[in-house]
């Protein structure tokens, strides 16, 4: 699965673990499961985990911007975590850091440990 979605009720957080390549072809299939979970849970924050993303182009930036807009409409926040250095560079080129923080955190502490 290119995306696995979790929900933590205590912190009202949706965590989406993305994996593999994010391009125009694969991004289409990633949006649905994430948005379905967001609309079902109406979370306070969405965490997009890029740890297992091996490649990304501007479609990934489109994916982040789209989820940012959705979370913003719901009054929530977005956090992106653990991108590889070259993917972080691309994110910064696309101005992602102006929409959300890009942080590095161990998997175990992802849901509870991140301060907004």
């Amino acid at each position, binding site marked *: 699965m290119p995306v696995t979605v979790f929900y933590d009720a205590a912190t009202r957080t949706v965590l989406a673990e993305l994996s593999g*390549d994010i391009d*125009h072809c694969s*991004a289409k299939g990633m949006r649905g499961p994430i948005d379905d979970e967001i609309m079902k849970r109406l979370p306070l924050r969405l965490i997009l985990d890029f740890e297992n993303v091996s490649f*990304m182009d*501007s479609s990934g*930036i*489109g994916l982040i*911007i789209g989820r940012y807009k959705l979370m913003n409409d719901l009054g929530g926040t977005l956090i992106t975590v653990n991108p590889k250095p070259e993917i972080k560079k691309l994110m910064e*080129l*696309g101005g992602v850091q102006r929409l959300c923080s890009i942080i590095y955190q161990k998997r175990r502490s992802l849901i509870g440990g991140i301060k907004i």
Partner: protein
Amino acid sequence: MKLKVLNQMVLRFPSLSENERFARLAVSGFISSLDPAVDELSEIKTAVSEAVTNCIVHAYRDTVGEIRMEVRLLEGCRLYISVKDKGCGIADVARAREPLFTTAPDEERAGLGFAIMESFSDKLRVTSRPEHGTTVTMLRTLRTRKPQNGSGS
């Protein structure tokens, strides 16, 4: 001054979305003998992915057409990549190259394709004729770790 061509390939494939992956893996395989650095390889793959995606999303918007990709390795570790389509063309290339400009916002296109190709290549050339197609050419010098025949002169 004309640079000597050390190796080259030409690929023709239909503008199907799954070929975005194929195109960047093909380029990645083509330059693998140069042992490029991780960040360098990633940037080249990203630039190719943007060029091919543009053909699929914009040039052949409601149809499937042929994409022609040519890659040449020139002396001095210079990489030449050209991606050509015979699609709808771009009326205003300067405007299309502006960051954040997109004609497909509904599909979550960030409008960053050309900006990314530009920052990940040393030189980017875009030539286009409406109704005839677009050619994107990128030049990039690799900081290779292996000595190449004919390089450095």
